[in-house]
């Protein structure tokens, strides 16, 4: 079985990011996953343990005390060493802000090619073939790298987590400072994560609110409905710009792309940029007071009316019908 390198993202305090477990799952469908991570030496044991919990059997740990002196350099060096040592069939990296930087530098440094934003990966005659969802799901494209080994950025939320292992072997490698002037990290403020709600990218139900809700207070309507359905909360760019919802809830061309079983758009007109982020949903429901809102063109069930009347009634109706065991 071929080796598949998996780039592991961790927080400054050494916790695995939520991209790690699903990415490991994707790697295991292609070959033997080898995790590549860089962090300060005292985090080694804890990270190796967390990785074994996530199903890793083999970890390459790059020890660095330069964690704030560089954005990505230790990661790129660790991956470069691992590419040389393990002759992988692919390098998998989460399609995150830092992941894209790592992938870009690594591709140039080791002379490998890139596959971007894969939503599915498979082996075909020994080569890694990726599926991509382009223009917000309007096109399905398959790509591969000819005569080379790909570095693949994988869309966040793709992949099923693995069972824990009994422990992972850890190889330790050393990294050095960059041979260019680097970017130094100053104060870091972690974004708050909604602990009680499913992750937006992988949730099976998403309830999103738009500008039509009129205020941050009214946005609670969307949250109530989302919680009732065990769904994630999303927002249109207009709602985010107006300050009704945090930026990491933005669904659309420039935000998160979602493809849930059920997408409920409340007070969202459905500008084409918003649709690009959600039109791959299996079922779309829209509630909007403007009967000409473009969201109705793609909604499986559209309600023209006042969200402030309809959503509370819907919450009551669902509550009355709910057969779900609490």
């Amino acid at each position: 079985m071929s080796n598949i390198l998996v780039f592991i993202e961790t927080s400054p305090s050494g916790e695995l990011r939520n991209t790690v477990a699903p990415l490991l799952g994707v790697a295991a469908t292609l070959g033997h996953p080898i995790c590549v991570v860089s962090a300060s030496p005292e985090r080694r044991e804890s990270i190796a343990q967390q990785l074994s919990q996530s199903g890793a059997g083999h970890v390459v740990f790059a020890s660095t005390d330069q964690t704030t002196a560089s954005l990505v350099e230790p990661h790129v060096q660790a991956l470069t060493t691992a590419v040389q040592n393990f002759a992988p069939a692919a390098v998998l990296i989460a399609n995150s802000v830092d992941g894209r930087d790592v992938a870009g530098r690594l591709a140039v440094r080791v002379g490998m090619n890139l596959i971007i934003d894969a939503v599915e990966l498979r082996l075909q005659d020994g080569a890694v073939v990726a599926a991509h969802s382009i223009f917000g799901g309007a096109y399905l494209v398959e790509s591969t790298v000819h005569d080379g080994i790909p570095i693949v950025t994988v869309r966040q939320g793709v992949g099923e987590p693995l069972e824990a292992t009994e422990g992972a072997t850890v190889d330790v490698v050393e990294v050095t400072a960059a041979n260019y002037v680097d970017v130094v990290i100053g104060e870091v403020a972690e974004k708050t994560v909604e602990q009680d709600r499913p992750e937006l990218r992988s949730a099976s139900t998403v309830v999103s609110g738009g500008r039509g809700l009129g205020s941050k207070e009214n946005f609670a309507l969307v949250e109530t409905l989302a919680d009732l359905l065990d769904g994630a909360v999303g927002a249109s760019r207009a709602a985010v710009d107006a300050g009704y919802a945090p930026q990491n809830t933005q669904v659309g061309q420039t935000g998160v792309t979602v493809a849930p079983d059920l997408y409920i758009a409340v007070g969202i007109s459905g500008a084409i940029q918003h649709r690009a982020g959600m039109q791959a949903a299996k079922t779309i429901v829209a509630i909007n007071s403007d009967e000409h809102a473009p969201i109705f063109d793609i909604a499986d069930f559209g309600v023209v009316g006042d969200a402030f009347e309809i959503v509370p009634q819907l919450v009551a109706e669902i509550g009355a019908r709910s057969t779900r065991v609490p």
Partner: protein
Amino acid sequence: MKIVALIKQVPDTYGERKLSATGVIVRGAKESVIDEISERALEIALSHKDKDKSTQVVALSMGPESVTEALRKALSLGADSAVHVCDDQLVGADLVTTARVLAAALKKEGFDLIVTGNQSSDGQGGTLPAMLAEHLSLPAATALDSLEINGTTLRAQRSTDYASATVHTTLPAVVSVTERAPEARFPNFRGIMSAKRKPLSALSLDDLDIDLGSDRSGGRSVVLTSTQRPARTAGIKITDEGQAAAQLAEFLSAGRLI
């Protein structure tokens, strides 16, 4: 100070976007526009020029003939000159090739700062700024919501999937900006008129001494298939007269969605 803003011409996200069977964007010049994120990158350069008149702003783009329109617009917004990397061999160029060619063009042009958007609205690759930085042995301060240049020091607010951080580095550097960066200005009449007289030069692969056939050691990324999904159509649409919530709950229940 010389700032090069990278400009990408893309299909307008307000219009219908099409891919060919080989995964190449079908370009109709009419619906092609400067990517909004490129305009924000240019705005960073222009607002620095507002403060320091000695700043020289160059708009640089790679793409087919139609890209001259995008570069003329950049000139009308206030860029001093424009460079168009254009060569038939670059049709369908992958990221590795694009980065290699743009890095060569940037070296030839010279710069103190390179500003790009964080991710284009069509390809959404988001790896190019780091790739250019690696080619040019420069720092890459990516995904910046705001930035401040003081002499050769750059301080910025960077936003990732998980955190927001202050970062700093020294010029020369590559930076990429997010859609939180300020919106672009509008061209005025004077800008449009003067744009016609500003230099817009073209560079071919020969001019850059690049032979695409000579180095393919990393392989080529290729599109195998490209299929258009059937367009979504409107389903049931009702107007609320007090009963809509119940009907909607019934619809969701029938589809086992609640």
